């Protein structure tokens, strides 16, 4: 027992020493941390997208940031040429939690310093360098390849508003970014400018911001407000331009013409006509029309397409074709010496009321033609020699309405040119008949008599002079007499006393005079005194 105890106490505890040192924990921990970092990196790796730009101006791989509202959402990784070599592919890594900016309709563009008619933008990038910015779209699909815009977009897909197309065949061109103005208020801008080679027209894509998009209806008319217009009327000379910006670089204005109703709301991407100026709206608007023909015996030189057709100065239509082609009528022949001018009469120009339909007007026109409506070509502009068609009632009633092909013919009155010739002739003969010799003689006589009149007038002036002298003497005398009437002179004092006396006498006579005025017969009949007034009261 004792031995056992001694043994247990004395025997050393043998331990095999671990072959591995605890220090191996250190590289193990380092490895774990390293793996953790790798995993974290892998987790947060960005989304790689490709932006296609026309050129890589200002872009720097690994430095240029992609920002949204000035918050970094990614970095440009590398720049390379696109496969066809025509563009530049910018490979961009977007942070993994910024997936929402990569909708299929998101727009990317490079922010660089820009100076335009609407001001200076991107000034900060002068120092910090260009950066790419994004305007997120609202498409439910995401994309990995985007075509970068060269200029900042006017509107983003998330902007509320309406996009419309304006078609213009006019000469004044507008640029992207030009304002769209409604009654002097900027409500939108031109987004795209495209020239359609096929239709030879310019198509402007415009964007109207909400809430102004509700101003656009089917009856809205757009016109180019670039430059300025000068109007001369009875109120004077008016120079008008929409805004300084649109004056310099052009712009678009719109409104609903006063004679039109509000119209219905329009859908996105509707096409509108862009008129070259505001007046062109009323002039060039397309109306429903009735087609007639005028057979003109004179020259139609100066009569152009769209020349006005007027009834006593009121515009009711336009010239559709100044003459019909040779295939439609035998233009040059001895048999037919009249040229067919096709006109459009547009009833809506003179009435907006739908009760008066086109057919109703056609019926009326036939009636009027029968009672003597006739057309003639008159000079619209004496400088350019432009002609217009003028309709008027004449006394030449027609029995049967003439037809020219399918067209109803409005009889032509004596043409303006012919009547002018006639009038000029009359004027000349009248001038010829004037008794110019007699006129000259009588004028001579008149001048002579005028001369004698002048001489006598001279005598009169002399006489007047002597009269004036005597007046002068009289005045001197009068001054002397008045000196005797000074306040301290005896005459004046006496006069004053007499006047005092007279006043007293008049005062005394006043009641008497009143009595006489009230009752003129009191001079003869004495008046009985009025009865004494009795106090009123109850009798005792």
């Amino acid at each position, binding site marked *: 027992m004792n031995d056992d105890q001694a043994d247990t106490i004395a025997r*050393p*505890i*043998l*331990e095999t*020493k671990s072959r*591995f*040192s605890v*220090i*191996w924990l*250190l*590289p193990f921990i*380092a*490895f774990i941390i*390293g793996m953790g*970092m790798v995993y974290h990196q892998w987790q947060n790796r960005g989304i790689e997208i490709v932006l296609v730009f026309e050129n890589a101006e200002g872009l720097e791989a690994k*430095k240029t940031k992609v920002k949204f509202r000035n918050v970094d959402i990614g970095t440009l990784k590398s720049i390379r040429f696109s496969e066809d070599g025509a563009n530049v592919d910018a490979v961009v890594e977007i942070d993994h939690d910024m997936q929402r900016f990569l909708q299929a309709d998101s727009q990317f563009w490079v922010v660089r310093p820009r100076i335009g008619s609407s001001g200076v933008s991107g000034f900060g990038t002068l*120092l*910090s*360098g260009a950066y790419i910015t994004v305007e997120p779209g609202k498409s439910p699909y995401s994309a990995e390849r985007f075509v970068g815009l060269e200029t900042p977009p006017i509107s983003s897909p998330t902007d509320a508003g309406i996009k419309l197309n304006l078609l213009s065949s006019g000469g004044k061109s507008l640029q992207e970014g030009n304002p769209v103005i409604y009654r002097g208020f900027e409500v939108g801008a031109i987004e795209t400018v495209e020239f359609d080679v096929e239709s030879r027209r310019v198509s402007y894509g415009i964007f109207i911001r909400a809430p102004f998009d509700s101003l656009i209806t089917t009856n809205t008319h757009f016109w180019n407000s670039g430059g300025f217009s000068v109007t001369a009327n009875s109120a004077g000379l008016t120079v008008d331009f929409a805004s300084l910006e649109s004056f310099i670089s052009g712009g678009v204005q719109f409104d609903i013409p006063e004679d039109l109703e509000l119209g219905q709301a329009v859908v996105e991407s509707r096409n509108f006509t862009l008129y070259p100026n505001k007046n062109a709206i009323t002039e060039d608007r397309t109306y429903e029309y009735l087609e007639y023909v005028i057979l003109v015996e004179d020259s139609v030189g100066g009569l152009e397409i769209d020349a006005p057709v007027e009834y006593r100065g009121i515009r009711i239509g336009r010239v559709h074709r100044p003459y019909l082609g040779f295939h439609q009528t035998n233009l040059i022949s001895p048999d037919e010496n009249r040229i067919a001018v096709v006109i459009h009469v547009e009833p809506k120009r003179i009435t907006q009321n739908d009760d008066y339909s086109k057919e109703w007007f056609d019926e009326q026109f036939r009636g009027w033609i029968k009672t003597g409506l006739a057309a003639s070509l008159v000079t619209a502009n004496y400088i350019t020699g432009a002609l217009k068609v003028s309709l008027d009632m004449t006394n030449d009633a027609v029995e049967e309405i003439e037809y020219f092909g399918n067209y109803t013919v409005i009889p032509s009155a004596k043409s303006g040119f012919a009547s002018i010739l006639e009038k000029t002739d009359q004027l000349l003969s009248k001038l010829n008949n004037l008794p110019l010799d007699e006129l000259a003689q009588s004028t001579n006589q008149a001048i002579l008599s005028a001369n004698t009149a002048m001489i006598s007038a001279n005598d009169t002036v002399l006489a007047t002079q002597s009269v004036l002298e005597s007046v002068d003497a009289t005045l001197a005398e009068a001054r002397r007499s008045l000196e005797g009437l000074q306040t301290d002179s005896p005459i004046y004092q006496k006069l004053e006393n007499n006047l005092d006396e007279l006043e007293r006498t008049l005062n005394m006579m006043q009641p008497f005079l009143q009595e006489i005025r009230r009752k003129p017969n009191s001079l003869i009949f004495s008046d009985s005194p009025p009865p004494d007034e009795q106090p009123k009261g109850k009798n005792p």
Partner: protein
Amino acid sequence: MHAEESKVSATSQQKQIVYAKGTAASHGIANCHVCNQLAVSSLSYCPRCKGRLHVRYANSIQQTLAFIVTAMLLYIPANAYPIMTTTLLGDAAPSTIISGVILFIDHGSYFVAFVIFTASILIPIAKMLIILWLCYATSKNTRLSKLELTRLYRATEFIGKWSMIDIFVVAILVALVQVTGLMSIEPGLAARAFAMVVILTMIAAHQFDVRLIWDRQQQS
């Protein structure tokens, strides 16, 4: 206390290591590595300073290897991450060690590029490889003599601390260049990793028991 002493003596009895001729250990003498007092190796504590006596460091190779492996792991982020970020007018430009070297070469400062390259890349890699090789050389025959190996080790231990020059440069730049808003320099993650690499290689070199070279070389 008593039990521990007997435990130590028991293990030393068990191992029965035969030290090479000419070494102090073969004569039963150990050098106190605190006060350099020569003492009988059977003692556990230095008779002068009471420091622990080791004939050879316990697990020297293992510990050295562990530190070197850690240093090597850390050397990866030290090169992959930016060592500092220069922000000039809001334009942040991170730069790694390699990109810094390339930048200086591009600018024609070949000397600076050479210094950075030597201090930050050449020396740490060389040091880690040499220590690894020394660990290997203690167990295997090599063409180099024990004296050459010892000189290599000393050179490594001496030159190792110069790698810190990079960390000092970064630290000084960060402290000096702080013009708020205009320009600033921030240390990157790599600076920390690199500092750890240098420190760990220094510890590894320190943990390596140079006396092991003499043991194994003599044995064969």
